[in-house]
């Protein structure tokens, strides 16, 4: 029995879809954020998998991408959480259903 | 040495500050009229010759028929201490105006006096029973608190061979 690229890709795909489901279904803004983080993580996993298994001249490119994604995810988390806190402060809710200021 | 102002001296100061504020004068104390109390103490606190700035002590005393609130007020610069008293004759609803607006230090002591004597201090920002709990029956430091059936009174009545204390002027509440 051996573990190949398909196994890792399967895990990555499932985590991505779970993240997507969370991001689409959750009412709480922080919950949505968590889904997005999960999706990013799944992408990281896929990138590292390709970097490990693919025959490429520069396999380090996958790692580099992951570093950038982690950076962007950290920045995104900080900004999104600041948004959630400030939205809560102004609207007294973090329910995404209630974010309807643009509706006339 | 701190000079203990005699009653007439204190009364003179109080009359000079607020005319008509003194109810009566004894050798040591000056009895103020309750309605002029806050005004008089305020005036004496700010006047430089009286300079009564430090409300050292505030307590109540129960004399069976009436109750007194005693104020010892100290001056730092003049280094003298004055003794004021206020009488209240209503045992059911005793009331003495609060001096908390003038002396913040009266906050705790008036609460304590209210707690133990039941004397209300109108003008106090937050009058509550500070040592006992809300709903405690009675006012423990009043002389008629827990007067036992059979005429026993609080206080150490006698030693052997000594005449008993005289009867209180107020009927003991059973």
């Amino acid at each position, binding site marked *: *029995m*051996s*573990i*190949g*690229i398909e*196994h890792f890709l*399967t895990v990555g*795909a*499932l*985590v*991505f*879809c*779970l993240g*997507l*489901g*969370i*991001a689409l*279904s*959750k*009412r*709480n803004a*922080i*919950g949505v954020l968590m*889904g997005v983080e*999960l999706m990013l*993580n799944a992408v*990281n*996993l896929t990138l*590292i998998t390709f*970097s*490990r*298994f*693919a*025959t490429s001249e*520069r*396999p*380090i*490119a996958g*790692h*580099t991408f*992951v*570093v*950038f994604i*982690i*950076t962007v*995810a*950290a*920045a995104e*988390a*900080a*900004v999104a*959480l*600041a*948004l*959630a*806190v*400030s939205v*809560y402060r102004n609207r007294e*809710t*973090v329910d995404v259903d209630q974010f309807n200021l643009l509706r006339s | 040495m701190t000079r203990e102002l005699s009653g007439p001296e204190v009364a003179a100061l109080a009359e000079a500050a607020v005319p008509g504020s003194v109810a009566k004068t004894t050798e040591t104390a000056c009895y103020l009229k309750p309605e002029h109390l806050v005004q008089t103490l305020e005036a004496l606190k700010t006047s430089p010759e009286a300079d009564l700035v430090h409300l050292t002590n505030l307590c109540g005393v129960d004399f069976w028929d009436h109750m007194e609130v005693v104020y010892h007020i100290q001056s730092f610069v003049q280094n003298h201490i004055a003794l004021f008293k206020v009488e209240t004759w209503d045992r059911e609803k005793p009331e003495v105006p609060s001096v908390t607006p003038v002396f913040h230090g009266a906050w705790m002591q008036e609460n304590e006096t209210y707690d133990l004597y039941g004397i209300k201090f109108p003008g106090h920002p937050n009058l509550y029973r500070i040592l006992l709990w809300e709903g405690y029956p009675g006012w423990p430091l009043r002389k008629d608190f827990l007067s036992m059936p059979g005429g026993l009174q609080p206080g150490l009545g006698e030693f052997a061979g000594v005449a008993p204390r005289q009867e209180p002027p107020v009927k003991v509440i059973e």
Partner: protein
Amino acid sequence: MDGGGIVFAFYVLAAVTLISAAGVLVSRDLLHAVLFLILTFVGVAGLFVLLSADFIAMAQVIIYVGAIAVLILFAVLLTPRAGRNNGETKFALPGILLAVCLAAVFLFVIHDVAWTTNDEAPVLGADQLGEALLTTWVLPFEIASVLLTAALVGAIMLARTPQEEAEDALA
């Protein structure tokens, strides 16, 4: 990638990752969801180790668990009790259906494609990564630093209260 140890480790880690990711989806308490999320991150870090990406695995734990998850916990703390419900919106069913469809497509693609793989793991240490970041990818690297600064400033500005802004204006 053969060997009983690796197979065992993969299945354990995959199970941890998937079960805790599912836990994020189903848990009603936002705090439990965050804790499941942390467990997912740790599981993904373990998978990174299996893929011989040690540096990335450690960075994953340090940044995701040590920083982002703690940040989310902090945000959960800052929103009062009423905001800690992790329930679903009315779009929950279509959203989950979409995710399931996407998963089916993904799985089909993954198992249908004949992947050409090399079994020899490339040597990818921290030093290679550093060299790549500072030579080939130096422009994105710099842009990322600008992005981080912008995020820092933006987060501070967003989370400030009008009172604090007024105080700063006076100072």
